[in-house]
């Protein structure tokens, strides 16, 4: 008997320890309904602001308690995918990057909210915002964090080289760049984010669309290996060879571009909105404060001729309700609340609103006065967003993108010709599309 007691007592200790560890975390909120949100911590409003929004919602909806969790961007996709493996799912509301919408829609992770949208939303939110969360005509979430890549230039360097205005075409940029190089002002006029990562696709799409081209046709079949695609990629390769584009660009992601530009080692750069404040206004982070300006993203002559005024990449995120959620209606209420005009206006300091009418009249003035960066960023946002293009909404985008990233690297490092690299990538897309 002593033996059995001995063993049992050990087991009890073990169970106690596990239980203690289990209770070491926050106890579960015991409301009638709990909604769990998965978001990202480096996006938009600070966690404090997000928690304030959540608190407001909880106060206004006594039957519902919202809990929000943050993970890093790299972990977000896989966390969402893993969470879908249980019923009910681990989260009711998730933050989705626009390149995942097609995949998640095809896997039936997200709730179709097309019929839940009201007229106000449809008219007053930017069309390019809806392009993010809409797949095959159905909408799967509310656009929330709208961002695009902007064209930055160093006014001082341009003036020294004798230019008063920024280029409007890429051909102009190359010409200006050569003058800047000859005058010894910078070694490589423009730095890009062409590392083997999604960042390279962003730049490729910007340039391709600026040429009047597209990654896929209406049927979703890859056409990036057509004449326009090859021309665009070849232009990229040539710009490195001629020394206009910084050769280290093939290892750069957005932060590297920011560093190079902020050290005055580039006259031009393409980057997301976040770079403006740091490069133009933050003396600790930048040596070129006061010299930074933004302009509409240039296009190619051919694109201009085809009627393309400007083209840039749209890199946004949306909030969606998980299809399998136990409380889809309550979840949708929260998503609507989070993305509503009032909330977005209030917290616009870190997140520019998706509502077009916030960029008119008094609302616009209020926005521009929010912080030292907004007088420049808000008008630029308004100008550029309508010309932002989304990446293809194909379910196999993650895998396909990797193949295309590889193709860009191979061409840029001279391992393959532009045509060969793009053809090989297109073959992968066709294979993926057939599955």
């Amino acid at each position, binding site marked *: 008997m002593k*033996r*059995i007691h001995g*063993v049992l007592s*050990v*087991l009890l200790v*073990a169970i106690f320890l596990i239980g203690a560890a289990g209770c070491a975390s926050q106890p579960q909120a015991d409301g009638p309904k709990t909604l769990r949100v998965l978001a990202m911590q480096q996006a938009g409003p600070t966690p404090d602001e997000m928690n304030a929004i959540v608190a407001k919602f909880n106060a206004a909806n006594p039957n519902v308690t919202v809990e929000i969790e943050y993970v890093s961007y*790299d972990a977000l*996709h*896989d966390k969402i*995918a*893993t969470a*879908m*493996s249980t019923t009910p799912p681990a989260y009711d509301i998730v933050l989705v990057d626009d390149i995942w919408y097609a*995949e998640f829609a095809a*896997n*039936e*992770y997200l709730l179709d909210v097309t019929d839940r949208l009201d007229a106000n939303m449809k008219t007053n939110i930017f069309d390019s915002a809806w392009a993010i969360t809409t797949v095959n005509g159905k909408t799967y979430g509310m656009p929330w964090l709208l961002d695009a890549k902007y064209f930055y230039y160093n006014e001082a360097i341009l003036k020294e080289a004798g230019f008063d205005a920024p280029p409007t075409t890429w051909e102009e940029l190359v010409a200006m760049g050569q003058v800047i190089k000859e005058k010894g002002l910078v070694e490589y006029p423009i730095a890009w984010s062409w*590392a*083997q990562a999604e960042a390279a696709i962003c730049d490729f799409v910007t340039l391709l669309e600026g040429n009047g081209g597209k990654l896929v046709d209406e049927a979703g079949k890859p056409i990036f290996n057509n004449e326009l695609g090859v021309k665009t990629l070849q232009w990229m390769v040539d710009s490195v060879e001629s020394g206009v584009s910084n050769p*280290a660009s*093939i*290892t750069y992601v957005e932060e*590297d571009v920011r*560093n190079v530009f902020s050290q005055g080692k580039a006259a031009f750069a393409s980057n997301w909105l976040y770079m403006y404040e740091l490069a133009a206004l933050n003396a600790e982070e930048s040596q070129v404060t006061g010299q930074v300006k933004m302009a509409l993203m240039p296009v190619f002559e051919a694109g201009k001729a085809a009627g393309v005024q400007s083209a840039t990449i749209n890199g946004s995120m949306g909030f969606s309700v998980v299809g399998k959620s136990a409380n889809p209606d309550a979840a949708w209420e929260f998503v609507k609340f989070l993305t509503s005009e009032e909330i977005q206006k209030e917290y616009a300091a870190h997140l520019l609103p998706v509502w077009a009418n916030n960029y008119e009249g008094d609302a616009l003035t209020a926005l521009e006065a929010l912080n030292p960066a907004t007088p420049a960023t808000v008008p630029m946002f308004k100008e550029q967003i309508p010309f932002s293009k989304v990446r293809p909404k194909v379910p196999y985008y*993650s*895998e396909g993108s*990797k193949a295309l990233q*590889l193709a860009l*690297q*191979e061409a840029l*490092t001279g391992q393959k010709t532009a045509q060969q690299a793009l053809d090989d990538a297109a073959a992968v897309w066709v294979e993926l599309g057939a599955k």
Partner: protein
Amino acid sequence: MSVLAKPRKTLTLARQEIRDGLWLLAPSMLVILIITVLPVIFTLVLSFFDTPLSNPVPRDFVGFGNYLEFLSSQQFWQAIWRTLYFTLVSVGLELVLGLGIALLIHARPPGWNFLRTSLIIPWAVPTVVNGAMWRWIYNADYGALNGVLLSLGIIEKYQAWMIDPIVAMNLVIVADIWHSVPFIAIILQAALAGIPVELEEAAAVDGANAFQRFLLIRLPLLQPAILVALVVRTVEAFRVFDIIYVITSGGPAFGTVTISYLTYLESFTYGHLGSGSALSFLISAFTLVMALVYIKILYRPENRA
């Protein structure tokens, strides 16, 4: 009666021992069964179905379809090749370097104790920290590797080491070697210390030089230790994942996608749980075979003390 009494007593004693044993083993066996054996069986079952991550239930039976699919996939064979390369090069170099360091310590130069203590540090540093540290060292624009090579005049300009798949793979191997050599060095050094001094002295008296002593006395006596180190490290190297996730995330150009990383991609990033389960099964099978080899060799009569 006395003839019968003795056997009964022995039987009861033996049975009692078994019963005691079962009680003592019950908690552990239960835990292992629930946490390891059952999940593995579930994974095996899943591997015979076309299972998406969003609905991990056995539904669309495909038999050996998943297995056949990756056996005919180029990505799979490339991953196997890379894993073999990683394993052979890393374990091979670790063994050689580890043996060298063990011999060095064994020679008792002044400060040998400090050396042995210092070896513990790379071994104890967590894998993620190790990965982050080397990633920063290899950084194309600001890394220490570039800095050192530039200062020594070996390179003219900073190089982007990690964009070439082959270079990247080898640099990951370097990071892994730094972390794992101490393990082998310490084991081998302890084994060396266990070799009776008289054996070596006798050989020296007989006229054997250092190299002969090494080959004919030390090496054979080190065999069990080398085997242990070899097998443990081989199994670990074959399953490598964490360090790849942190340093290269499988890139560049899939150049560091090992079989474990491919399994992760299939299961979580692409959501093909059926294929992922089949792949993870392959890894389990290989490591189990290695484990059996290990056990067979270690439990040979001459190796058991």
